[in-house]
């Protein structure tokens, strides 16, 4: 039972403490609420709140309320307790019998009377205060607390309000319409999937192709509201006091509102900037492939790569354009194919990793064919999508069979005789023979070497023809040909036998006429300007002849070594011969290039006759007008200086000038709106007003002056006084010279 009594005491103690806490909270909340309404400052209000709570708590000290104090309080309040409540707190053992009895009695009474216990600290007062403060705060907030007008004007929120100024400053301020509400909505192009954006801020920065909706609510009905931008003036649709307009954004510009009331008085708003951003081009990053890839016929001809593509508003398509070229020179053929990526493409995604493996075989590419490909990405922009192309990548299947030699490409025809090509082939064959020496028998090797010696001889004899040597000046080629049957030649399949007479015979059908006169006609007849004397042939100059002779002697030596079955020793001679022939060929090219201009024939009868009757003087007239971009701004500065000095009113002509100057400035300002907006606004005002302060004129003049560039250096006339004194002085100077 006694436990029960003590429990009641503890309960009462807690309740007491809670009430004290609640009290401090109520005070603090009420006061800080009012404070917040007055200052609109959250942080200070919260700090204020915490401070008040702490102060009240420190003042009331709820933690000091002990059970003993509670017991004393109960003793005071309830006489039925007979000042014995404290007994409940004492340990039973320490009590006498009577005390124990009394304790029981008190516990019972306390249980019974606990409802009658009055709370020492009532919450009535704090509650009342809280309610009062709350009501006060609400009322203040409702009617609007207006500390001072100045204070409100510097509030950042109020700065956004459109403030209109009357063009005629003499107008009664009360008549001035006030924009009570302003609203701006930007509707982005549908492809961007961006939600519409609303704002009360009138300076706009948005995406190309957006539609902008303005809605202005005024405090009274007026005649019209115009939206003036740099190029045009648009009338806003009126619906009572609400005016609205929509515009499709095509370019960056500046705009302002002009309000016209029923009396014809105009009011102008500040100037706002519309800055247009453009949709970015898609980006492509290709990884895993070299710019040039070459494949052998035997390789696995596959190209694998990854393309990382991205765009700011989503991708519409990505594909590979592959072009396969077949053949060479004039016979080249192109085939274009559009390939899609192996990875699936999700339309509208902003970032993708696409993979592709191109199998050259599946494109039916053969050795010597080339593949060019690039990746193209298209974004979702409408109406005209942005496209980006990657760099071009190349893949070639190497053609080992093709002949690398080519005569200079600028020559219209390949005029070089076939003979010149063979020395290189001989070298290749000789080198091959040396390389194969270990694998073949000595007889075969010797035979092959001898055969090469024969080829070398044939080549030498053909060059001899260029020199005008007799064909039979060396060993008879034809005779030996018969001794060496073709079938047995082990080098047959390696030898390129354009050089042999036999080859010539086989291809005789190509030039029948030639073959009939073979013995008598030189194969160079077509190319030579031969005046019957081989020594005076004009094809080669003296030094060329010497070179050719040297080449032939090198060939002699090479043939000798080959005949001696020492092909490796013949190689240096062969190389020297090849170099010499190469030099001769290069000289020949220069000769070919020298053919050129044929001057028209001179009319001998007109020559040196001095007849100028058909020759006329020539006249040319040109107006080079210097169109300066800022000519009107300069003019405006001059006019402003006149206005400042004479203190006259701004006339209509001036206003027109300022308007044109404003347009010139706007053209400059579009690239850098933030720098020029203020100036632009000032001059805009000036183009509408009649009167303004000298200070303002000076300011605008200064701003304009800063905008215009310096003029280039240019001579100018100076003036002098033409008086008789000057004449006298000049006369004196002349006399004393």
């Amino acid at each position: 039972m006694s436990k029960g009594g003590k429990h009641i005491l503890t309960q009462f103690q807690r309740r007491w403490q809670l009430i004290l806490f609640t009290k401090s909270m109520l005070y603090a909340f009420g006061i800080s609420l009012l404070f917040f309404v007055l200052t609109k400052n959250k942080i200070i209000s919260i700090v204020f709140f915490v401070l008040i709570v702490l102060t009240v708590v420190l003042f009331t000290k709820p933690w000091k309320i002990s059970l003993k104090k509670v017991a004393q309080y109960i003793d005071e309040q309830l006489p039925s307790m007979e000042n014995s409540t404290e007994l409940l707190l004492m340990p039973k053992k320490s009590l006498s019998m009577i005390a124990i009895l009394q304790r029981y009695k008190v516990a019972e009474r306390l249980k019974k009377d606990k409802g009658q216990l009055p709370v020492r600290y009532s919450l009535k007062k704090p509650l009342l205060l809280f309610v009062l403060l709350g009501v006060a705060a609400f009322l203040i907030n409702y009617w609007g607390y207006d500390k001072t007008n100045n204070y409100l004007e510097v509030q950042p929120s109020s700065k956004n309000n459109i403030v209109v100024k009357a063009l005629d400053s003499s107008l009664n301020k009360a008549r001035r319409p006030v924009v009570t509400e302003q609203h701006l909505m930007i509707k982005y192009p549908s492809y961007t999937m961006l939600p519409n954006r609303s704002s009360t801020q009138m300076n706009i920065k948005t995406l190309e192709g957006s539609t902008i909706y303005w809605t202005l609510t005024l405090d009274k009905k007026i005649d019209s509201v115009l939206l003036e931008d740099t190029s045009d003036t648009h009338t806003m649709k009126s619906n009572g006091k609400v005016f609205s307009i929509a515009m499709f954004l095509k370019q960056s510009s500046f705009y302002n509102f002009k309000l016209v009331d029923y009396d014809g008085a105009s009011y102008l708003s500040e100037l706002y900037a519309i800055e247009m951003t453009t949709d970015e081009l898609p980006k492509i990053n290709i990884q895993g492939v070299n710019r040039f890839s070459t494949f052998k016929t035997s390789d696995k001809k596959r190209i694998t790569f990854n393309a990382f593509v991205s765009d700011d508003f989503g991708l519409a398509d990505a594909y590979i354009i592959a072009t396969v070229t077949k053949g060479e020179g004039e016979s080249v053929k192109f085939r274009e194919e559009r390939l899609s990526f192996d990875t699936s493409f999700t339309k509208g995604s902003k970032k993708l990793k696409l993979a592709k493996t191109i199998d050259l075989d599946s494109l039916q590419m053969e050795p010597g064919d080339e593949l060019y490909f690039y990746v193209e990405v298209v974004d979702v922009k409408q109406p005209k999508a942005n496209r980006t192309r990657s760099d071009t990548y190349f893949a070639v299947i190497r053609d080992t069979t093709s002949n690398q030699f080519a005569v200079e490409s600028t020559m219209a025809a390949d005029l070089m005789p076939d003979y010149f090509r063979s020395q290189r082939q001989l070298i290749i064959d000789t080198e091959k023979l040396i390389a194969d020496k270990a694998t073949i028998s000595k007889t075969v090797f010797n035979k092959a070497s001898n055969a090469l010696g024969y080829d070398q001889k044939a080549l030498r004899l053909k060059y001899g023809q260029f020199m005008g040597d007799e064909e039979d000046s060396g060993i008879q080629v034809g005779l030996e040909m018969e001794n060496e049957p073709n079938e047995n030649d082990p080098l047959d399949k390696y030898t390129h036998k354009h050089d042999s007479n036999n080859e010539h015979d086989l291809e005789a059908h190509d030039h029948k006429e030639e073959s009939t006169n073979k013995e008598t006609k030189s194969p160079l007849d077509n190319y030579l300007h031969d005046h019957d004397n081989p020594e005076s042939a004009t094809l080669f100059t003296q030094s060329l002849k010497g070179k050719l002779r040297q080449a032939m002697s090198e060939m002699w030596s090479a043939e000798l070594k080959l005949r001696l079955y020492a092909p490796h020793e013949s190689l240096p001679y062969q190389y020297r011969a090849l170099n010499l022939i190469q030099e001769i060929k290069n000289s020949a090219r220069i000769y070919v290039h020298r053919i050129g201009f044929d001057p028209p024939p001179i009319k001998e009868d007109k020559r040196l006759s001095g007849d100028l009757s058909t020759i006329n003087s020539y006249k040319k007239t040109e107006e080079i007008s210097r169109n300066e971009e800022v000519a009107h701004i300069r003019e405006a500065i001059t006019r402003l200086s006149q206005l400042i000095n004479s203190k006259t009113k701004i006339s209509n002509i001036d206003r027109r000038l300022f308007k044109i100057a404003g347009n010139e400035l706007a053209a400059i300002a579009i690239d850098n709106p933030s720098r020029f907006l203020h100036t632009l606004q000032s001059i805009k005002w000036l183009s509408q007003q009649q009167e303004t302060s000298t200070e303002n004129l000076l300011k605008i003049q200064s701003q304009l002056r800063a905008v215009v560039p310096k003029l280039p250096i240019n001579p100018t006339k100076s003036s002098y006084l033409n008086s008789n004194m000057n004449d006298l002085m000049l006369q004196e100077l002349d006399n004393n010279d």
Partner: protein
Amino acid sequence: MIDHIFFENSYLFWPVVILGAILFGLFIWKEWMLKLDISLLIKVFVAFILIFSLAMIALKPATMRTNKEAVVLLTKGFSQNRLDSLKAKHKNLKQILYQENVPFEETLDLFGTIFILGDGVATYDFWQFNNRPATYLGSPMPKGITKLKYPLENVIGENLEINGSYNNATKGHSLVLQDSYGLAIDSVALLTDSLQNFKLKAALKATGKFVFKIVEKDETGIRVSQELLPFKVVPKTTFKILFINSYPVFETKYLKNFLSEMAHEVVLRTKLTKNRYKFEYFNYSNVPIINLDSITLSRFDLVIIDDMSYKSASKRQKTAINNAIENDGLGVFVQPNYNLFSQSNKEFDFRFEKDGKTKLRLTEYGKIAFDKFPFRFKNRNRFEGIHSSNGHNYTAYKRFKKGRVGTSVIHNTYQLQLKGKTEAYKRFWSDIVNRLAKQKESEVDWKINTNISIIHQPFKFELGISKSNNNVTLFNDRQLALKQHISGSNLWSGTNFPSQQGWNQIRHGNEALDFYVFDTLAWQSLRTSNQHKMNNLYFLSSQHNAKRQRVRKTIPLFWFFVVFLFCFGYLWVHPKFYG
């Protein structure tokens, strides 16, 4: 000490002497008739004294005396130390406090020596010191801008260049050139604590009348002082230029492009063959040019001609060109080539000497090297240089009456353009065209004699008029009185007392002189410094330099009158006692 006696009424000397002699003669004759004794001799003597006194009263005798008394005129800003030293040297030194525009010459006459201490007297009070011994002792230069030089009238596109000196500068301060509204254009830091020269620059971008400011700021950027800088920007005028070439050259091609792009009227005549020409007209809408006669030439300000074209011109054409130069003021620039430098070339009066150098650097063009022929102008009196270096002329001209003929040893300037040095190219040719071409004849030439005009203070100006005219009237808000110069009937001068601050104007017909009127506090340091200079100049001139030791003193006539009365009394009383 009496050195000399002279009469103030010296013009009466002879009449008085004759009258006195007659009077004396009459007296002796009258006395002679009575009796001749000792008393007669006494009477004659007394009568002589009497007549002498009377004559003296009429002639007012005066003496020259040395006056050792000194006076010091204390003007604004005088130094107490100097005054104390002066006092120590001159006992009984009198002090007068200077007040502007108050006559004090009579006071000055009482003293043998006049010292002036402080910033000096105003120029309009100088007259009071004419023929008076005055020494200007001056005072230290004031702090601030003490020298300032900038053109009051400028041409658009050029730079406004302000040169000046700042006395007693404060290290760390800076001078900022601001436009009318206060936007900084140029600035210079004051680096020393003594005198510092400065230069400020602003591009002139528009025509009109402007008032810029020179503001002194301290280290923290706070304005210490501010002075106004008024100036006028006038528009450019274009030239009419004729090119005559006997064959096309690059120099002409580029020069023609430059000039025509700058809106000048340019006409080219390039010879194609005998009597056949290529005519090119740029911005030129007038009558076509066919012949080089006086009418054609009168339309142009400058002819740019090559040596060969001039040589091959007919005698008549040459006469027309020479007449246009001498009488119309036509300018001629001869495009140089090697023939021009040969000794035998007598077409033009140029004289060259070989210097062997083919490259030239001109100081005002920095590091740019110009190509030149290995010649330079011989230094002769009548040649005025346009481009000079180290005392030698490389582009020069000579005046022929009204006109000028010039040439240059510099060539291939078009290569400057090709090298991207367009600025230098434009400047080079602008210099030549500006100096050679015919100038505009103006009817009126104004000259301002008051550097800084202050409200309600005299503003002095001179006016030159092209045609002699005895009826010159000037107006600002009312008609101004003018004084014609003694030596020339078309030179006039006048003084105006501007009554309003800011831009003022004086008009003569259509021509006007614009000048800016400052308040009384403007440009204190500069005005004081100018006043120092003016005072030094004025008081150093010989009339003040020779200290006048002696002053004139009239002998009081009272004593002569007393003597006269006594003599008169004696002559009257004597017969009464002894008669």
